[in-house]
């Protein structure tokens, strides 16, 4: 994982989620170890008002592994300021024989080694298959948590 300071913000955020998801789905490695490689121990993520700490994040890996979502992430824009990053992206997800897409407004803070410390995400569902306004980081078929 590259530090945010050495990366293009768009590539950083796309790479972070893509790599985390790939590691989760690659094998049966202890999910806590994978979560800890990508997040500081005091991680707090808030998604649409739902607060997730490390334990909840680890618990959420179970449905991700069970449902094995296939997703494609389009990062429309991303800006970084020191250890913080703001990004807007669309996740196109195929899961449990259904397709959906959600646009995500992301604000995050990362440690110097690239691990996530804080994140706030607001999401809105958009029609499945709808293209983002500017597909700037089409990453191909990737697995990512939904």
């Amino acid at each position, binding site marked *: 994982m590259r530090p945010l300071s050495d990366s293009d913000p768009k590539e950083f955020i796309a790479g972070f989620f893509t790599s985390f998801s790939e590691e989760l789905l690659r094998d049966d490695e202890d999910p806590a170890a994978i979560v800890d490689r990508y997040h500081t121990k005091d991680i707090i993520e808030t998604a649409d008002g*739902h607060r997730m700490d490390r334990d909840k994040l680890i618990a*959420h890996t179970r*449905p991700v592994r*069970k*449902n094995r979502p296939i997703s494609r992430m389009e990062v429309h824009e991303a800006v970084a300021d020191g250890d913080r990053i703001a990004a807007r992206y669309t996740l196109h997800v195929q899961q*449990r024989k259904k397709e959906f897409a959600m646009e995500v407004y992301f604000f995050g803070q990362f440690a110097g080694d690239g691990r996530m410390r804080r994140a706030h995400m607001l*999401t809105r569902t958009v029609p499945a298959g709808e293209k983002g306004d500017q597909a700037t980081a089409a990453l191909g078929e990737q697995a990512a948590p939904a």
Partner: protein
Amino acid sequence: MINSIYTVLGMACGHCADAVTEELERVPGVTAVEVHVEADRVSVTSDRELDLAQVRAAVEEAGYELTAHNT
């Protein structure tokens, strides 16, 4: 009407709530499902006594883990 409360682990967002709700609504007798993501709690209203094994199977099918039946 019977109301049952279950503890379900792994839910993180509204999409998780939708997946759990969808599967539980398939269980015969279920008339309503209410999910509290942050509390890991699912409230199920039914017109009959529910079979815990069926409820657990529905939650598992959605990918989540039912750890307690609180009612």
